[in-house]
């Protein structure tokens, strides 16, 4: 039995491809419905800004070269 046929695929080719699909996960057992409470797809994280050294207050500005 042919379950799906790709564009340009002959009936014989589709039958062979579906045979591969049919056999590799074994006989059917049960049906489940799964509605995740959280999105299983990771969100695109914002690029992290370059780590800058903390700016420290100058204790004696007169000793700092211009």
């Amino acid at each position: 039995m042919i379950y799906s046929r790709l564009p340009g695929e002959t009936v014989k080719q589709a039958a062979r491809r579906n045979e591969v699909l049919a056999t590799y996960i074994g006989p059917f057992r049960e049906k489940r419905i799964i509605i995740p409470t959280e999105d299983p797809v990771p969100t695109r994280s914002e690029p992290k800004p370059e780590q800058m050294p903390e700016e420290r207050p100058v204790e004696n500005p007169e000793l700092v070269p211009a």
Partner: protein
Amino acid sequence: MNHSDLNSLPQKDVRFRPLIGYRCWLTLDGRFLQSVIMGVVWPPRAALRSFEPPTEMGQLGIHAYSYPQAAIEWLAYIQKTRKVLNDASIPVWTHTYAMLAGSVKLWGVVQVHEDGYRAEFAYPQELWVPHDFDPVTILELERSYGVHVRWLTDDEVRWTEGL
């Protein structure tokens, strides 16, 4: 996801944590995942959806094994024999390709088989690459899909011996 079709189902059939399946892919352009048999390109940062929700009969749905050894053995089998890719009935989707395995989250309508699943929705959870895999492609896959990519462990490599 459109849940309207699912609301009428008995509560006992509804779960809230994605199932985890295992499968292998080709890489496309060094940064995308592509199904080995169907040639479908898995979209980065978006769920892959089956053409239609899988029914009990037929082969619709996103296929994955229920245990990792099966996926890795299949990866090794195809790499060593190229039987599936060289079969005249199976298109060779890319001229230059690398193959990898990994785990996937599965949800929506999921048909459970003896050795695997057919799911309505899927997204990669983690990718496992052979030791000769291109390191640049690893970085590109991590960036594209936002998932961890690791080398196959010694135990996993042992699963492929003798195939």
